[in-house]
C-alpha cells in the first residue's frame, strides 16, 4: 500500500502504480488487496479484475493511484496510537454491573 520507500529513477517508463480495494460481497467493506501498474484508472479497474478477482473474490473494485494516498509515518506510531492504551473506560468491559443487568 503506497509502500514504496522512494521512487527509483528508472521508473520513468513505468505505468503508474495503483492500490486495489475489493468488496468481497454486498454488505462488506472494500478491503485493500494489493497493487498493480496501469496507464489510467479505466485500465486499472480492468486489470484489477484479471489479477485480483479470478475466482469471484469480488463484486466491486476501487482503484486509487498510490501517489494519491497519504499514510501515517511508522515513526509516529507511538505518538498517534499509544495514548489510547490507558483509556480503558472506552470499552464496555470496563464497567462491572450487577449480574441481573450485566448483559446490557
Amino acid at each position, binding site marked *: 500500500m503506497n509502500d514504496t520507500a522512494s521512487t527509483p529513477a528508472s521508473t520513468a517508463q513505468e505505468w503508474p502504480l495503483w492500490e486495489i480495494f475489493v468488496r468481497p460481497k454486498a454488505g462488506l467493506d472494500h478491503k485493500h488487496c494489493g497493487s498493480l501498474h496501469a496507464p489510467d484508472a479505466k485500465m486499472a479497474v480492468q486489470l484489477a479484475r*484479471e489479477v485480483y478477482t479470478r475466482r469471484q473474490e469480488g463484486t466491486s473494485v476501487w482503484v486509487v493511484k498510490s501517489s494519491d494516498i497519504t499514510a501515517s509515518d511508522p515513526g509516529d506510531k507511538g505518538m498517534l496510537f499509544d495514548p489510547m492504551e490507558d483509556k480503558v473506560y472506552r470499552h464496555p468491559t470496563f464497567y462491572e454491573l450487577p449480574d441481573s443487568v450485566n448483559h446490557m
Partner: protein
Amino acid sequence: MYTQAMDTGPKEERKAVRSAEEAQLEERFEARIDEGAFIEAKDWMPEHYRKTLVRQISQHAHSEIVGMLPEGNWVTRAPTLKRKAILLAKIQDEGGHGLYLYAAAETLGTSRDQMIAALHGGRAKYSSIFNYPTLSWADIGVIGWLVDGAAIMNQVPLTRCSYAPYARAMVRICREESFHQRQGFDALLVMMRDGTDAQREMVQDAVNRWWWPSLMMFGPPDGESTHSTQSMRWGIKRISNDDLRQKFVDATVEQAKVLGVTMPDPLLKWNAERGHHDFGPIAWDEFWQVVGGHGPCNKERLAARVKAWEDGAWVREAAMAHARKQALKEQAA
C-alpha cells in the same frame, strides 16, 4: 510455481561499521523478529534483510512468469476443450502470481523495470526447473503433480515469512496453487486409468524426466546453501531445504502408487528406522549446470521473455500516451 534459485545468488558482505543509531535500530529489529512480529514495508530494516528479500521475491516472481512458457507450449495441443480451459486458467494464475510478487518486491524500493532488466540481463535467476522442455502432454500433468507439488511444499512455510507483504502474497498464491497440483494429478489419472499403453508409457516417461529436477527445486543440501542460516534467523525461511525435500518424497511416493507409476530411483525405499523414505544421490552437477545457464532451454526461455517485452513496448507506450491525452482533454473541458 516457485524457485529454489533464491538460495543461489552471490553472497553479500555485511557492513562491519555501523553508527550507534543504526545499531540500536538493528537491535530493535532483531527483537521484533524474535517475538515473531511481522515487518511492514515502511518499518526500519537492515539493508541486508532488504537485499535478501528483493533477491528472493523478485526471483520468485521471475519463476512464475518464466513458468508460463513450458506450459504455454501445450495450450494449442491440449487433448480436449476442458483440458485447454484448465491449462489456460492455470497459466493465467502463474501470471497473476508473478504480479503479486513483483508488487511485494516493489514495496522494498526496487522498481518493476529494474527487476525485469535484471532478469533479461541474466543477473537475476529464476527456478531452474523451467529450463527443461515439455515434450509430451503428460509433461503438463506431471508439472502440475510434481513441480507444483514441490512448489506448494516450499511455499506454505513462506506464508509465515517475517516480511508481511511477501507473506500476504504467499497466502493468496497458496490458496490458488492447490488447484494446480490437483488438475495435474487428475489429468495423469485419466491417462493411466482410461488411456492406451502408449499413453501410460508417456506418463511414466514424463515422471522419469521430471522426478530429479523436482527434487532439485528444494535447493542445494543444507550444508551448501549459501543464504540459509541468515534467512532462517530472520524468519524469511522457516524449514530447511533437506527437510522440505524429504517431506516431498514421502508424500509423492504414496501418490505414485495410486497413479501406478514408479520413480526413476532404484535406491528409493521406506526406512522404518527413520520413518522416512531413503532416496538416491541427486546429480548436483546437473543442477549447477542448469542454474549457470546451461540447461536444455535456458537460452530459449530468456529469449522468449525478452522478445515479449520488446514486442510489447509500443503497447505500453501507446497506452501511456492515450492516458496522458485523455487527462489533458479532461483538464481542458
